């Protein structure tokens, strides 16, 4: 048995857990089906504890999805796309307008990082900052 450092993913289709809150969704994505599986390392003293985790998978390619997409298309205000004005032009115009409007306020906040939990949790005995391993082997990704 080896503990290899390598990607576990793969470009799977299908779906994944999708509970209510977006914060919770991210957590569930990370901890319920990823990470080392204890059973692979320990057998004798494993405690089977009851887990009440939600398994609400979203099926990306489904009838529901298709009906939703269709309704989204139906809802679009296509009045301006009428025969006189081609749709591609309209789309281009709409996107430029949308971009212009949003860029000012959102440029800085385009990416938000969640790092507030990082500080002050663990520290090394031997002090100092993180050292780099000199023999730095990495898995190809």
């Amino acid at each position: 048995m080896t503990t290899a450092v390598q990607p576990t993913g793969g470009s799977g289709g299908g779906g994944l857990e999708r509970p209510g809150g977006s914060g919770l969704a991210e957590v569930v994505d990370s901890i319920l089906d990823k990470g080392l599986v204890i059973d692979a390392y320990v057998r004798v003293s494993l405690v089977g504890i009851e887990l009440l985790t939600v398994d609400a998978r979203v099926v990306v390619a489904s009838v529901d999805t298709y009906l939703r997409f269709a309704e989204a298309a139906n809802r679009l205000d296509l009045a301006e796309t009428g025969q006189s004005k081609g749709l591609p032009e309209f789309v281009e115009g709409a996107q430029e307008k949308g971009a212009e409007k949003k860029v000012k306020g959102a440029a800085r906040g385009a990416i938000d990082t969640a790092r507030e939990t990082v500080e002050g949790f663990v520290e090394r005995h031997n002090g100092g900052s993180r050292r780099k391993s000199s023999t730095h082997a990495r898995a190809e990704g």
Partner: protein
Amino acid sequence: MSTEHGWYVYGIVESDVEVLPGNEGVGDPPAPVELIRSGEVAALVSRVDVDKPLGSRADLFAHRDVLDAAAGAVPVLPMRFGAVLSSRTAVVHELLEPHADEFTDALNQLEGEAQYVFHARYDESALVHEVLSENPDAMALVEQIRDEPIESTRDTRLQLGELLGTAVEAKRSADTDVVIEAVTPVVAAVSVRPPTHEEDAAHVAMLVDIDNSGELEDLLDSLARSWEGRANARLLGPMAPYDFVTTTQG
């Protein structure tokens, strides 16, 4: 003899790490997070009542918080949620000691690195506009269902939705490639996560040298700006390398 409590295992770290006081783990009430050491490796653990189920929102967040906080400072191998051993002795003799070499090796590989997750979602109306503009067949179907009741146009709607869904999948795939290409210069590894929503534009986990994290943020910020109005993007991290540890039998 039955045990009333067990030891919940969050992950594996090097043994020269110390947990600062005041950190609480899973369970209700939560117990403090501690370390069980064995040679060069140690397990991040806390006591849990084995008769109470785990999996509340607080439990899930506690597991994540312990690991991500650790990952911000030192290399950590995250365990999957729900790992419980019967005693401290079991943690040492069954988990840490027999697997010390592979844990040490994996921790060495992760030295100086942390995971980030990039997650982007399309703006729905921008997405539909974009797809329809590129797909005259779909546009024709939209005209057919316009202002018609769902009941009489269900088949057409499904046909339209499937066209749109397929087109969105192709866009997601292309945009995911754009993300991977953008970050390749600064990441050690990437792992594509499955979409969690039908309008996901990209969902990519990345293993990054901490020293490159600023550069990574800059690159992805540029990308997010170029998608402004089209998709909203988020970068989460640094976090534990959930997507880059695997257990393989061998």
